[in-house]
């Protein structure tokens, strides 16, 4: 297959080989709630064992390997639950893990470098952080419960006023400012701090940026079309 680039993931590939080739897949597994001791399992075996829709897994895992799904690959996902679970898990990962981590490193840097430039960065981050929390809260409390009720065909629980279209129109971008933060650090603003802390900070930034980009692709290019399909089926 595509040598020197990451493999295109198919159902018969061994998960262990794929992890060895791209360790970002660990995060992907974590979002799917799959343990990392994958033994000798193929992708398909792992999905069966963990009761994950195979097509959903393959499409999402391939995003981590840099492959964007084509329409018919998305249409083959016949169960949106794993997609929703995956996204919800990612939300908690961002809220409980990644953003606090960034905050922690910024605090640490602040202790040695409390200049004007740093204040600007800190203010920028705090404003951005609030935006992100609002974005995630909206999805967790309004959008996703609606998607779940739709999936369960639970008409009573469905908000009449909500729809995939509404979600699409309100879906904001939460990656751009993170990329900006990265570029401010790497290109424009010299912040004095020990290299180790700065590197860890940047490492977290890169990791989060990568995951957020995939997250948005899943929401916009996979989730929304799938939800729209269900809406059409249910409402005729």
């Amino acid at each position, binding site marked *: 297959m595509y040598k020197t680039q990451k493999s295109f993931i198919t159902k018969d590939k061994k998960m262990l080989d794929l992890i060895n080739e791209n360790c970002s897949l660990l995060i992907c597994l974590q979002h799917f709630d799959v343990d990392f001791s994958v033994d000798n399992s193929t992708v398909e075996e792992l999905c069966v064992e963990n009761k994950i829709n195979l097509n959903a897994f393959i499409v999402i895992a391939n995003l981590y390997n840099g492959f964007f799904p*084509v329409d018919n690959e998305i249409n083959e996902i016949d169960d949106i639950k794993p997609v929703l679970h995956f996204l919800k898990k990612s939300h908690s990962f961002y809220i409980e893990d990644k953003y606090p981590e960034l905050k922690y490193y910024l605090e640490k840097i602040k202790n040695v470098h409390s200049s004007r430039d740093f204040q600007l960065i800190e203010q920028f981050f705090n404003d951005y952080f609030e935006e992100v929390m609002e974005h995630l809260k909206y999805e967790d409390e309004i959008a996703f419960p609606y998607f779940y009720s739709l999936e369960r065909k639970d008409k009573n629980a469905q908000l009449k006023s909500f729809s995939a279209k509404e979600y699409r129109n309100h879906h904001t971008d939460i990656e*751009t400012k993170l*990329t900006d933060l990265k570029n401010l650090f790497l290109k424009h603003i010299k912040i004095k701090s020990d290299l180790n802390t700065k590197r860890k900070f940047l490492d977290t930034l890169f990791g989060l940026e990568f995951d957020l980009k995939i997250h948005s692709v899943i929401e916009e290019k996979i989730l929304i079309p799938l939800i729209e399909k269900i809406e059409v089926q249910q409402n005729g």
Partner: protein
Amino acid sequence: MDKCRRNIVVLEPSKIVYEGLYTSISKSEYNFSFFYVDSLIELETLMLKREISIVLVNPGIVQNRLKDFANLKKQYSETRWIGIIYAYYDNSILKQFDNLFPITEEVTKVIRIINKICNNKTSCKQQNEHLTERETDVLKWLAKGLSNKEIASKLNVSIHTVNTHRKNIMDKTSIRSLAGLTVYAVSKGIIPLE
């Protein structure tokens, strides 16, 4: 990601030949991501997913599927197709390619061919990262919260011009959000800290 990184595919049954090409072409002054495929179908799948600049082709793979090959070429007219020749092929096949080189070709010559193709594409020119005076003006007003329209009338230019400046500012600084540009402007002393 680096805008100047180009995707290059080798369509070739022999892994050894691929490895050789990979090692040689990596010495080009341009940055490439390499892909290895050994069938036209695999190439088609890949091209759906990636923007491919150059495909190095063993004509043997396409000679019996010239119609499919021609279709693919038509579909991706921006892509350049280079034939790697290591046997006799009919001219009707060879003329399908934008460039050809024999497998015995010197590495430097192969790189020259590839570089020439890359040179022709202007989209990848290295940019001067310094903001011009006009761009600095636009940034100043942007950071103060003015809309494109307001800036246009302040500077007495069209909205279109403001948009172009804005795009250039974002490209040069790699910062896309207004809040980020404001941080940039303050840190560079373009606007004072209020």
